[in-house]
């Protein structure tokens, strides 16, 4: 059975099919949206919202990669969330984030991984999004271009600069040699 089959079964009230989809893709969605938004808690909310939206998405979209389709829903929700919580939209008097570890960093156990997460979070937004879609969600360059609406060449160049920046930063900190 394909993921599309499981989705159709879930639409018809099959709880087992629903759980199967959830088990297969939930962690990937959380990691991806956490990388984009920088918050593990928000990522859980977005992943669950993505599944609910998936259930009500039109059936005519059922072609191609299921994972790419689901990721696109989550990616759009993450973008919306980022816009909603953008610093420019903060209420007057609301405190800006401190320099301490972000909620995402705090949830990571290994010190090396924390350093990597910090380097990724410090990337420009457009590079971080491409990074998340490529390395965390595992999409092809073509799928990313389709999801983000930018040319494949731009996707490749953003990823290159994202990885180079992260490597340089981690080398500076002595994490990478």
């Amino acid at each position, binding site marked *: 059975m394909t993921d599309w089959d499981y989705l159709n079964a879930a639409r018809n009230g099959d709880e087992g099919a*629903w759980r199967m989809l959830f088990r297969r893709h939930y962690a990937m969605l959380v990691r991806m949206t956490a990388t984009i938004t920088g918050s*593990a808690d928000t990522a859980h909310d977005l992943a669950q919202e993505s599944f*609910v939206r998936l*259930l009500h998405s039109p059936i005519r979209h059922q072609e191609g990669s299921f994972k790419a389709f689901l990721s696109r829903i989550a990616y759009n929700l993450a973008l919306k969330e980022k816009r909603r919580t953008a610093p420019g939209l903060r209420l007057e008097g609301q405190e800006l984030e401190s320099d301490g570890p972000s909620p995402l960093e705090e949830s990571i156990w290994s010190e090396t*991984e924390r350093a990597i997460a910090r380097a990724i979070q410090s990337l420009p937004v457009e590079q971080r999004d491409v990074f998340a879609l490529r390395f965390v969600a595992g999409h092809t360059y073509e799928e990313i271009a389709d999801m983000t609406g930018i040319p494949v060449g731009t996707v490749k160049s953003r990823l*290159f600069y994202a990885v180079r920046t*992260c490597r340089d930063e981690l080398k500076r900190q002595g994490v990478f040699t």
Partner: protein
Amino acid sequence: MNHPDEDTLLKYVLEVLDTSDARELKGHLDACASCRLACDTIERQVRQLGTVSFPIETPDLPLPASTRRPYVLYVLRAAAILLVGFVLGYTTALMREPEMQVVISQQFRPTAPRVSVSHPLPCEQVDIGRHRVL
């Protein structure tokens, strides 16, 4: 080919290098141990960048209630199918069998005189004044 710089090796690892350049570089890597070692290091680091993980507990998200079909819907659907089938069958029987029309009309009008169906009359020959057709 000269020894490639780190950026070129990184592009090769990320598969963003042009096909012809990638082919040429691969040929060099096959022959040059130091560049191969540098490439392996970059590849390992890139892999490490993509494996940052934090504990994820998959919650138990129940199927939204709107997609669960209550059994009453199945019962209503079955009843509707049966009703439509009955109406269609009844109508078809009336339209196809003229003699049946007479019999049925008599059955529904017990006071009207009975007509023998051993020699059934075509519908148009039935005296409508005496034997009303439905």
